[in-house]
């Protein structure tokens, strides 16, 4: 129950953040989408032992965070809650690869390094996705998808799903609340009530879908989802994307921390 309401707050929070008007928010959604995808691709293209090469990429989320004036805490919390799957899989690495590697005087097994590498990558990729939605919002993102020629049916359906998640989650929360009030000692839903509980929810959902469709038709819906036209792509939008592309490629090609590090250690010597 708490789980549902928390998920709902998280969605609403990202939704609220997307309504701000900063430099990042005003960028064309398509370019932001492209930048994000490029970033993700570069991050995951690093090999599994790579750590230092990944570090410069932190500049991207940090810049977007501060330029878009997004709050750190709620988004970082999300990242910490990162899918247990990653940790579950990654944590096994130290057991399977115990070769020793010496790092600045310390000895670490390579498994830990790969685990660390996975963690950094997951931090970067998760942040990038959250930043995209928190600075763009679902509607504008859907507009970008339409520009990419994603079929209308899919986009329309995506938007409706998104919108009705809030409504249905609240309904589910209320039903579970009623359930727990009459079954105070249970943790989940007992199997004798599985079918009827979920089944009634579905049937109500079906009827609701019908009414929504009717409401749409009553307001002249003929299958084309009008969102009031797309924004033009400005030179600045392209420059934003191109700039980051340059940086990502550079970070991929050169191990920047190594360059800086040997510069410094070299100077000291």
């Amino acid at each position, binding site marked *: 129950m708490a789980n549902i309401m928390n998920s709902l707050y998280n969605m*609403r929070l990202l*939704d609220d953040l997307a*309504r701000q008007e900063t430099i990042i928010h005003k960028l064309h959604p398509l370019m932001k989408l492209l930048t994000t995808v490029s970033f993700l691709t570069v991050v995951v293209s690093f090999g599994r032992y790579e750590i230092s090469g990944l570090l410069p990429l932190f500049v991207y989320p940090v810049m977007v965070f501060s330029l878009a004036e997004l709050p750190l805490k709620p988004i970082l919390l999300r990242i910490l809650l990162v899918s247990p799957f990653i940790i579950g899989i990654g944590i096994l690495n130290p057991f399977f690869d115990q070769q020793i590697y010496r790092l600045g005087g310390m000895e670490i097994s390579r498994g830990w390094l790969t685990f660390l590498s996975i963690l950094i990558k997951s931090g970067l990729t998760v942040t990038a996705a959250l930043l995209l939605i928190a600075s763009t*919002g*679902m*509607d504008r993102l859907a507009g970008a998808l339409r520009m990419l020629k994603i079929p209308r049916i899919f986009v329309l359906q995506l*938007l*409706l799903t*998104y*919108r*009705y998640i*809030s*409504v249905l989650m*609240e309904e589910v929360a209320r039903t579970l609340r009623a359930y727990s009030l009459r079954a105070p000692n249970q943790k989940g839903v007992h199997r004798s009530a599985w079918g009827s509980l979920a089944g009634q929810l579905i049937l109500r959902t079906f009827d*609701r879908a019908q*009414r*929504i469709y*009717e*409401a*749409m*038709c*009553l*307001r*002249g*819906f*003929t299958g*084309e989802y*009008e*969102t*009031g*036209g797309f924004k033009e792509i400005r030179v600045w939008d392209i420059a934003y994307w191109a700039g980051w592309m340059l940086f990502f490629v550079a970070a991929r090609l050169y191990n920047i921390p190594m360059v800086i590090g040997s510069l410094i250690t070299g100077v000291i010597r």
Partner: protein
Amino acid sequence: MSHHKLEAKDLHYSYPDDHEAVKGMSFCIHHGESVGIIGANGAGKSTLLMLLMGVLFPSQGEVCVGDVHVTKKTLPMIRQRLGMVFQDPDDQLFMSTVYDDVAFGPRNYKLDEKEVETRVLHALELVGILHLKDRAPFKLSGGEKRAAAIASVLSMHPDVLVMDEPTAALDPKSRRRVMKLLTSFKHTKIITSHDLDMIYEMCDRTIVIKNGEIAADGVTSEILVNAQLMDECGLEVPLAMQNCPVCGSAKE
């Protein structure tokens, strides 16, 4: 303006499970009338509204708007003239912001974006929620949601406004606001409600429905005080007329 006339001729409707919800209703509503439709739970009010709107098609009889029969073919044209507010605003608000929701109708009629904006802002102002235009509909309170649902219909400039229980779940002040708003709407209004006091104040004419049939159709001030009729149809004389604490006129 006879083309705004709305006529039901011997309507019948059965749901797919053979439940006959509407059993032969006939009436004619002229332009500018405000008509209240009342009846017990399950009497067939919502079903009737859906037949009028062409959401459902009658199994017998027909609905005419002006001189046009409502059929699948004439539907798009007719719907531009009729606006319907559903009982549950959650069924009606499906865009991410109130603005987009209110703009949905006008945009579907391919108006240019300038005209859309004018209409949207005007409609929002009418219902007094201009300040909510960038909010997400699902975060609004019940009353605000209903106001938004009404605005989304007003922005289409309908000739006929059809509303299913517009004041349910509103607090008394918001109820008054909606009533004022409806009074200021000068075209035809068709309103169903269990709030008989509202019907009494707002509608000149009332149609009483009982088990899918019309039990009475006439001047509101005569019908709603007819205690026997009300009782037979699962209703009551409006609260404002019961048991006055000042003059102590007897209940019923």
